[in-house]
């Protein structure tokens, strides 16, 4: 049993966790057999088994039973369910379309029902069921109210509400400005921009994956991997001092991990050129600034001519520019994460004088 726990603890370490999850994610979109009800049920049962057997471990139980974390446990199963439901219908429609049939929704929309009473009735039943769930929850589990906050006693770890844990995880890799303001802002801007840059007419009113591969793939990557997964990591795998702890490890406040971060300027000037760091910030950060500029200014046209040629042709210049900018910003997160894990790399551009780093 301990070996299994050790393996899982190892697999939960940031590098492995992120890499394995991404691979599983792509596999999930590539190998479609898993959506079949029987397979999906097996996956559900396995997940429940893992969950409940893990509850035997006291450290795991401490995290999951914490009243604040109970919604997250629910959320995981709910997200999984809806992901399965939508992808199942998408893959089924893809199969039907491949066979030349119309999608399932086209058949279904022939049926008509009145909102009143039928939809409202269904909604009412959902209302009652939700009320029942909430009442049971409130009777059985105490509200997680602690004592009045003590400004001299910050809790360790100090965690953001669960829906922001992804952003708090980003703080490990990015400057607070970037992780807290710029990137979240771009998330919102990006979500708002989707209707304007997504010109693919397919998938209107019916689920499909094959016809909207990029759109769905990018969105799900951003949502499942870069948001939900990081929330899970922030809840279960980050402990005191924001150190990593496997799900079965004790949250030891005194754990010390060697984490020295290096900036690009140091790598360039000190390690590669064996010189002292220049004192003037512009000179010092020039390599980083150039790379950043390249990433944002030069890379889009390069991609337009190579990897993203189809996109450029489909979207036109304006839409493509917006799209590629947002895409590059989104990808900067995994890129930064890997740079950090591989090279202890922190800032591309280290402008602490202006409290702004990239």
């Amino acid at each position, binding site marked *: 049993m301990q070996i299994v726990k050790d393996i899982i603890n190892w697999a939960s370490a940031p590098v492995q966790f992120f890499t394995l999850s991404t691979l599983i994610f792509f596999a999930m979109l590539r190998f479609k057999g898993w959506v079949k009800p029987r397979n999906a049920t097996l996956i559900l049962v396995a997940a429940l088994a893992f969950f409940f057997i893990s509850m035997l471990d006291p450290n795991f139980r401490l995290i999951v039973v914490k009243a604040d974390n109970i919604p997250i446990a629910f959320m995981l199963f709910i997200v999984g369910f809806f992901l399965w439901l939508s992808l199942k219908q998408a893959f089924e429609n893809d199969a039907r379309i491949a066979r030349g049939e119309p999608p399932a929704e086209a*058949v*279904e929309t*022939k*049926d*008509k*029902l*009145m909102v009143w009473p*039928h939809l409202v*009735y*269904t909604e*009412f*039943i959902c209302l*009652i*069921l939700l*009320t*029942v769930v909430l*009442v*049971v929850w409130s*009777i059985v589990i105490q509200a997680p109210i*602690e*004592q*009045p*906050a*003590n*400004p*001299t*006693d910050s809790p*360790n770890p100090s965690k953001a509400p669960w829906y922001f844990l992804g952003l708090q995880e980003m703080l490990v890799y990015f400057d607070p400005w970037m992780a807290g303001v710029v990137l979240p802002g771009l998330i919102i801007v990006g979500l708002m921009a989707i209707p304007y840059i997504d010109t693919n007419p397919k998938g209107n009113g019916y689920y499909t994956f094959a016809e909207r591969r990029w759109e769905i793939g990018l969105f799900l990557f951003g949502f499942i991997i870069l948001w939900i997964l990081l929330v899970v990591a922030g809840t279960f795998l980050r402990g005191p001092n924001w150190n990593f702890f496997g799900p079965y490890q004790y949250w030891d406040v005194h754990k010390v991990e060697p984490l020295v971060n290096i900036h690009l300027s140091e790598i360039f000037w000190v390690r590669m050129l064996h010189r002292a760091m220049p004192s003037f910030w512009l000179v010092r950060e020039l390599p980083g600034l150039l790379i950043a500029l390249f990433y944002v200014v030069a890379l889009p046209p390069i991609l337009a001519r190579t990897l993203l040629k189809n996109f450029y042709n489909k979207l036109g210049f304006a839409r493509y520019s917006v799209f590629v900018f947002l895409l590059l910003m989104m990808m900067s997160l995994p890129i930064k994460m890997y740079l950090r894990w591989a090279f202890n790399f922190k800032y591309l551009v280290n402008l602490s004088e202006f409290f702004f780093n990239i």
Partner: protein
Amino acid sequence: MAVIHSEAPPVHRPERRNFWFAVSSIALLLVTVWMFYADYNREWKAYQRQFRALELQRAAKKITELDAQYKSNRDLKKLQADLDVAKKDLSGRAADLEKAKAAIAESNRKFFLAESEWKVSKSYFDAFKFEVEEARKENRGVASAEAKYNKSKDRYEKAVLDLGEVNKEKDAAAALMKSLTGTSDDLQRKIASLTEQKTRLEKKVATIGPNAANEFRDRPVVDFMNPSIRVQQVQLANLQNDVNFMKIPKVDRCTTCHLAATEKGYDDLRQPFKSHSNIDLIAGATSRHPYDQFGCTTCHYGLDRATYFASAVHTPGSAKQEEEWEKQYHWELPEFSDTPMLPTVHAEAGCLKCHRQEVRVAGAPRLNRALDILEKGGCYGCHKMAGYESLRKSGPDLRHIGVKTSPTWAAQWVNDPRAYRPTTWMPRFFNLSNSSAPGEQVRNRVEIDAVVTYIFKHSAPLDLDPIPVRGDPGRGRQTVSERGCMGCHRIAESPAQRGTYGRDFGPALDRVGDKVNETWLYNWVKNPTKYFPESYMPDLRLTDQEAADVTAYLMTLHGPDPAPLAAVDASVLDSVTVEYLKARLTDRDAKAKMAAMSVEEKKLYLGDKLISRYGCFGCHRIEGYEKSLPIGTELTQEGSKLITRLDFGLIELEHTRQDWFFQKLKEPRIFDRGKVKTPQEKLKMPDFGFSDDEASHTVTLLLGLTKDEPLLEAKKILDEREAAIEEGRRLVQHRNCRGCHIVEGTGGSIRETIKDAGFYPPNLIGEGGKVQSDWLFAFLKAPAPIRPWLSVHMPTFGLADHEAAAISRYFAAVDGSLFPFESAPAGKLAAAHLADGKNLFTQFKCLQCHVVGAPGAQLSAADLAPNLLMAKTRLRRDWILKWLKDPQKEYPGTRMPSFFYSDGEPLMEDPDTKMLAIRDYLLTLGEEGGRSGSVAASRQAPPDKDGL
């Protein structure tokens, strides 16, 4: 309109929804019922129901008991018999009764009518009076207004008269009735007063027992309206909870479950229904800390507003109780409480925040002992504590140590104080749990040597007088055992527990011959403050010979020679010196500097660094460290310290304050176990060798040092008299008066070394009321014999004027006597009166015991009494009268006979005048004598022409 494709999947068909609606509705119903059930079944409601059942049981039992009592009560039986007779008598006069009742009914009828008429007529009268005033003011319609007014006035006056008449009639009717039923009413009242207890209980049973209202009001669902099972709370505006960003009044809800805590008589029940212990001091309605003003959490801590066992943060008192609670209540160590409830044994910690100004907190023996330990142990020397900054350092002055003892002895001492003196308060610094490995022992030896070298090098020379005569140890031994040394010291006794005051005030003198230098000891015994200016050791006014004898005797006290310490390893001395030098210099420079130092220079350098590290100056005065600050953690608010700030290290302990404090006190360095630390990073608190008892008491004190600051209204603020008493108590404590005397009922430790009770130092009961304040002041400054037959001498304490005055004021305050001045009446007294006094004086043979000069051989020490020539300047005038009237009351156990009264009954004719005469005669004695230089001398009445 619904159009469903025939092949549509089932989820689109409506029929299934009815099924799910039914299921979910039933689920909602069940869950709602569950909700009401859960509310009805709250933990505290169950307790209240339980308690109610218990109360009914107890009441029923008590009623049965009372019934049995009443049956055998003869008075009651007689009254009941009389009542029966009276009732029978009354029944025979039924006609009269009827007449009386009719009279009452008629008079009542008339009264109602008359009263109603009176009310109406009065209202008109008042109204028309107003109108007349208005009319006259405006000079309009005066005549008609006046007419109306007059008419109404007549009517009103008539109504008043009528009412008076009717009232008289009513009274007459009532009197008539009373004449008939008066006896039986009286008897009934008497019976009711005898059976009052039972009536009360029956009423209680009726109120809380099952009755129509109770059946309804506590039922589930309807119990929102006016339940009798409800949360009991008390709001305390003067006591506040600090919730970090503001202070809110406490709202204690403890009595929701602890229903009998504030009532007497429930000691036999189990918690939560037990009465509070010591209920007359705490929590009782008539106690000094009534529940409705103090609540519970101000002493016991815990969450005041909670109504559940868990959320109130109850803390188990023992491991066994913890197990029980884990089983019964699923109790867990609370994670989010900065103020968990204190284990009951530490409840006295709560006293400290209001009773800080008192030397001894009445009713808090643990706390008091802990405060003593704090002062003797000198915790405040290393740990800053508010209120203790000006207290003298607890250890002896080391500025002249070189003339007292040798470095060899000092090194042995520093290495292990308790090996030399097991009862010492000096803690052990070296070879503790984090520094006992062999390599560390060598280092410790080097450190000890360095510290001792430094202290002896900086010891200033002192001019000591050589011993002038030869001392005789035998005589010295007698002097030591009789003169009073045993009031503060022990020799060759091993008390079970290290003490703080009484005979444990001064160090045990076993083995003193091993430690000190003879000349020093002679000088010390003659005049302690020459060597140690702040010493509490007084001057016993020994002659040179006596001092020499004592010295000779004490120098014979030896113990087994300790194993000699290892030699100082020079290479380790070097390496440690370099280690400290590296704090300021580079490795190379440090080594160079060290190489340039001589051995003594290295030791002195290291000694200085180590004294700074270990904080020796916290308890000892050492030259050069006068301005050094305490080295330890500040303890002023240690009881509020967050548990996350206490370093539990790798030790398996429950994460509570009391567990950490206890462990720290018992073995301070334990938290280094398992840690990798350089020598300078290691913990440095020394080991005091606390027993479990001492440590536990000290934990109580630490838990009481909180940041709670009750409002002034809630605190115990001392008034002037109380402040004087506390200041005196403080001085009495610090000078260890109780080593010899009984003060305020406790003390007199020296008595265990004196065989004959007649030789005890006096009990100071009533001292303030007995002696004149200025006499006491002068006596304290310069004692002179009052009872020359006592071998124990009152020492000269070297008190400052304000200290002696404070003690004098203290005694006066205790007895409520005047301080500092009391007048003597002017004018002369009748000669006959004084002659009477003189005759009585001779008649009662006062001088037989109250000797003037040498005592007669036939008297035993117990019979001797103070010289009466001192009375004039020493005793208070009215006290002498009290004393003559009832000596046993003033000084229980005295041999002074009661001449005048016995048990309040006079033994002769006109005792009071006689007592006055004796008193006045007494006060004419000793005109020439008395205290020399005392203020009293100037208060003497001017010598009379008659020369009396």
